């Protein structure tokens, strides 16, 4: 068994850390206060190749493996969650689905420009009336000759107003006996006629990010934009989540690390009752919990990443990693504020932002409650992974690197 990162992984980690700390660290507070995404972030992440990190070179990507994606997410969220959110939607939920399910023609048209960062991808599953209950999706696509006509609304969509392409799941068969089987996935260019979009303001966290809505009114989409087969939408959406949740788990691990590092630093600086507060056992207990959470979360996401590299089904492991890391990141941030006392309650320090940002990930990409149901379902054998027509490709260095 090997627990060390290889040289390539360490260099990826250092490079992404350098970018996040040097270029985003100094400005993030200002943009979080303004509730805006810094305009240079997406072009810069594209330029550095981060937006195509784990995609094969032949599809415009950088040819790194899935573990590198996780490591990058950890480093990005250690600075700000909004950076990792970009990777979750653009890479995990959209581009990796194109890699997994896309036809050669779809890879050419959509994956290559996304991998190069020339186009940005987002993902539309959630609706105003359908979250955890995916079968409640009410948006529709009606077949008309060689086109589909899309109608409906998608809500809580990260990068809705920044993205060029959305991978959406809508209902094509309203009469399907099992409503899950009536869903179909499409990749839609967001400049098509009939699409409106907007940002959502007043969020608790990820304020320096972009979260919005998409509405479709009689939007014509050619059949070539359909991902997979009609009725395969639910399976595709769940496979997207296997990848999106992986990035969320890795990112939340970075958030725990950020809370831990901030707490250790402050515990050594702040004096109370004549000594540094790190000397007090109740402060130590909080720090010990953060260490435990960080190490465990890290092992869980790295195992999921390794399984992806090996081509092993990882729905259970990824769900566990996501549930554990996101819950733990909220606790770590909360305790980090406690260690910082009143200072932690103000945005003079970063830890209050960590807490606000941590809460979102406990809700999106499967609430903690959904993940608990999944874990219990696997343990009780009520739940089994269904076979997928297309699996995420095994990481094959030769295939990934050659043009």
């Amino acid at each position: 068994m090997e627990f060390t990162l290889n040289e390539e992984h360490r260099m990826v980690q250092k490079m992404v850390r350098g970018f996040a700390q040097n270029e985003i660290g100094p400005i993030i507070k200002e943009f979080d206060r303004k509730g805006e995404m810094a305009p240079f972030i997406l072009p810069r992440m594209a330029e550095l190749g981060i937006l195509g990190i784990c995609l094969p070179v032949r599809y415009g990507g950088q040819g790194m493996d899935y573990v590198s994606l996780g490591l990058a997410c950890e480093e990005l969220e250690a600075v700000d969650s909004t950076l990792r959110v970009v990777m979750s939607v653009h890479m995990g939920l959209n581009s990796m689905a194109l890699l997994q399910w896309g036809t050669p023609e779809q890879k050419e048209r959509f994956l290559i420009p996304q991998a190069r960062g020339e186009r940005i991808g987002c993902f539309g599953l959630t609706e105003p009336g359908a979250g955890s209950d995916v079968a409640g999706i009410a948006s529709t696509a009606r077949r008309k000759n060689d086109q589909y006509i899309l109608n409906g609304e998608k809500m809580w969509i990260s990068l809705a107003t920044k993205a060029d392409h959305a991978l959406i799941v809508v209902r094509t068969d309203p009469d399907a006996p099992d409503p899950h089987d009536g869903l179909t996935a499409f990749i839609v260019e967001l400049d098509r006629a009939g699409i409106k979009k907007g940002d959502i303001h007043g969020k608790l966290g990820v304020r320096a990010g972009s979260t919005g809505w998409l509405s479709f009114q009689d939007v014509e989409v050619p059949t070539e934009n359909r991902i997979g087969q009609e009725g395969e939408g639910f399976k595709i959406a769940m496979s997207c989540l296997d990848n999106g949740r992986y990035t969320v788990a890795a990112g939340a691990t970075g958030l725990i690390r950020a809370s831990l590092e901030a707490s250790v630093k402050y515990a050594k600086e702040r004096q109370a009752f004549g000594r540094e507060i790190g000397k007090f056992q109740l402060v130590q207990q909080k720090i010990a919990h953060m260490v435990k959470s960080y190490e465990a979360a890290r092992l869980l996401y790295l195992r999921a990443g390794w399984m992806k590299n090996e081509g092993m089904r990882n729905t259970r492991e990824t769900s566990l990693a996501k549930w554990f890391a996101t819950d733990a990141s909220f606790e770590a941030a909360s305790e980090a504020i406690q260690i910082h006392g009143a200072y932690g309650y103000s945005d003079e320090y970063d830890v209050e932002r960590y807490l606000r940002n941590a809460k979102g990930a406990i809700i999106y990409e499967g609430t903690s409650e959904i993940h608990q149901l999944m874990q219990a379902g696997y343990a009780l054998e009520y739940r089994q992974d269904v076979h997928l027509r297309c699996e995420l490709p095994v990481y094959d260095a030769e295939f990934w690197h050659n043009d």
Partner: protein
Amino acid sequence: MKIVVCVKQVPDTAAKVVVEDGQVTWGDAPLVINPWDEYAVETALLQQEAHGGDVTVISVGGEDAKEAVKHALAMGCDSAILISDPAFENADSLITSQVLAAAIEKMGDVDLAFFGRQAIDGDVGATAAQTARGLGWPAFTLVSAISGLDPDAGTIQVERSLEEGRQVVDGKLPAIVSVVKDIGEPRYPSFMGIRKASRAEIPIWSQADLSLEVANPAVTWPEITNPPKREIVTEILSGDSPKEIAETLVEKILEEQVL
């Protein structure tokens, strides 16, 4: 153009460097490329992008110096050479410069060799000039901009950052250039560079490969100690008026013989 960039592997600036049993240690903190040398790599790559040719990164050090040259490879250097020999273990800057000069000569037809202004461990800052002396090349030190470079004519013009101001210097190739921060932010390694670097087989040149006689180092560190721990006592002076407090302070200062 044939460009060389010389880099050194040093303890991370964030590492806590202490002396234990007469030896300098930084615990298990990683070794990194000397931060000043990253600027040298950046400058070398910019010249290559503007004028063509190739960039070779070289380093003198133990096997662990590979991390530094691999970082330079990941930034975009074409090839790397590690010069490693037990005979160079306690090298001072003079010996290091002799080794580098011999390596640059062995490579042949080098037009430009770049250095960072100094290494953050020894902080001597003499290696670039000493290497130039060994090769008989002009040394442009503390360079903040390459304002002109004509490989065909074999000429270079640089701006140097000095305490007195900026100095523009013209010279001929081949030349040694050591750069300061103003030259421009070093780039991050690219993912393609990272993949290339992690697979690179780095040739190791030994003393025998360079046919070099090495004298004993002129500079040695016979004894290394931690700086004495500072004892700080804080005392707050009080009094009924500022004048009284000031008088007490004057007395204290005289008493402590600070003045």
